[in-house]
C-alpha cells in the first residue's frame, strides 16, 4: 500500500473533467455569452462574451456557487416577479439533468437592466456520468 501523501499528490491537483476542459475551450472561442458549471453546481467558467453581458470579468469573480452567482443578477420575469432558483434554466439543467430555456430580466453587476434568454443543458461524459452544465445567454 502506498503512503497517503502519494495518493494525495494526485487528488490535490485533480484535473477538471476533460469534458469541462473542452467545453471551456469551446466557450472561450464563442462570441455568444456562455457559462459552465461543474456537477456540484459550482460556476467554473464564463467567457468574455458573458463578461460583457454580466458586467464582471471572470478573473475578478472567480469560481463560486451557481446560485450565489445567478442571485446576484436578480433574475425576474417581464412582470418583475422574481424567478426562484429552482426554476432558472441552469438550476433545472443541474438538478433535473435536462435542457431548459427561459427568457428573463436581469440587473447585471454594472447596474444595467437587460433582457436575456437562457438555454442550459447538462453534460454527460457517459450515460451515467454527469459532469456539469453549459448555459448560453441569447441577447435580445
Amino acid at each position, binding site marked *: *500500500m*502506498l*503512503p497517503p501523501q*502519494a*495518493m494525495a*499528490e*494526485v487528488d490535490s*491537483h*485533480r*484535473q*477538471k*473533467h*476533460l469534458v469541462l*476542459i*473542452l467545453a*471551456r*475551450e469551446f466557450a472561450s472561442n464563442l462570441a455568444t455569452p456562455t457559462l459552465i458549471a461543474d456537477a456540484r453546481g459550482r460556476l467554473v467558467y464564463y467567457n468574455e462574451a458573458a463578461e460583457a453581458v454580466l458586467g464582471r470579468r471572470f478573473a475578478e469573480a472567480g469560481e463560486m456557487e451557481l446560485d450565489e452567482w445567478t442571485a446576484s443578477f436578480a433574475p425576474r420575469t417581464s412582470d418583475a416577479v422574481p424567478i426562484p432558483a429552482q426554476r432558472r434554466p441552469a438550476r433545472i439543467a443541474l438538478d433535473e439533468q435536462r435542457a431548459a430555456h427561459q427568457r428573463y430580466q436581469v440587473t447585471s453587476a454594472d447596474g444595467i437592466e437587460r433582457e436575456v434568454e437562457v438555454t442550459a443543458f447538462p453534460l*454527460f*461524459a*457517459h*450515460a451515467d456520468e454527469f459532469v456539469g452544465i453549459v448555459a448560453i445567454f441569447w441577447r435580445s
Partner: protein
Amino acid sequence: MAVRLTIWGCRGSVPTPGPNTIEYGGNTSCIELSLEDGGVVVLDAGSGIRPLGLDLLARGTRRIHLFLTHLHLDHLEGLRFFAPLWDERVTLDVWGPSSPVLGLRERILRAFSPPLFPVDFRDVPARVAFHDDPRKPWTSGGISITADLVLHPGPTVGFRIDTGKSSVAYLPDHEPALAGISGKPREWVSGAALAHGADLLLHDAQYFEDEYAARIGWGHSSVADAVAFSHVVGARHLVLFHHEPDHSDRTLERLEDRARELSGRDGSPPTLAREGMVFELP
C-alpha cells in the same frame, strides 16, 4: 528497486522497421513495468508488445495486467500477436478507457474478427478479462496507477504510476495545446494532474513546430508543446515519445536537440525514448 520500466515500443502511428529507425526503434507504443513482487504491468499494446510477450513467456510470467491508453491501432495492433494470449496458463486483465457507446470488450473484439483477423476471440486460450480504466487509483505490488482522460481524439487516458518514492507519467498521445498549456490554472490543463511533479514524464513529441502547424487537432504534440507542458507540470525528466514514422534516427536527434534548446539549461535535459531503454524507479 521498486519498479523497472522498459520501453518496448515508442514509435507513433504505424510500425516503422528499416535501416533508418534501428537506433530508436520502429515498434509502436508499449511499456513494461516489472514490479518488486514479480508482477507485470504493461502499458499499451502497440507492436512492441509482440517481443515483450515472447520475453514474458520465457520468464514464466503467467499473470499480466495490460492498461490501454486508447484503442487507436498503434496502441492495440500488437495484442493479437501477444504470445501470452495464446497460452492457456496465462491470466490477462485488460484495462482501457470506457466509451459512451460500446464496452471495452466489444471495441477490442472488432480487431479480432474478419476481415481484420482470421481467428475469433472465442478461440483465445488465455483467461482474459476486460475492465474499464479504474476511476480511483489501482494498486498492486507496491505501485498505484491513476488514469485520467486527456486530450486526444476519442476516449483516451494517460497514466500516472506512483511507487511511493517516485512517479512516472505516461501520456503517449496527447495534444494539450488544443486547450492551452500556459497562462491558465493547472487544473484546466489536460494531463497536468497526472504529470504534476513526476520524476519521469513520457510524453508525446511527435512533431517539429512547423510540422505541427499543419496537423493541429490530430491529437499529437510538437516538441515545443511537450517541453512547455513538462515545465508547467514541473516534471523532472522529459522523455520524448511517440516518434513520427517519417523521422529517421538522425531526424529524431535533431528533435532532441530542439527539445534541449527549448528546455534551457535547468534540470535534466529531455531525451528521446528508445526501444530497450530501461529506467529503475525507487
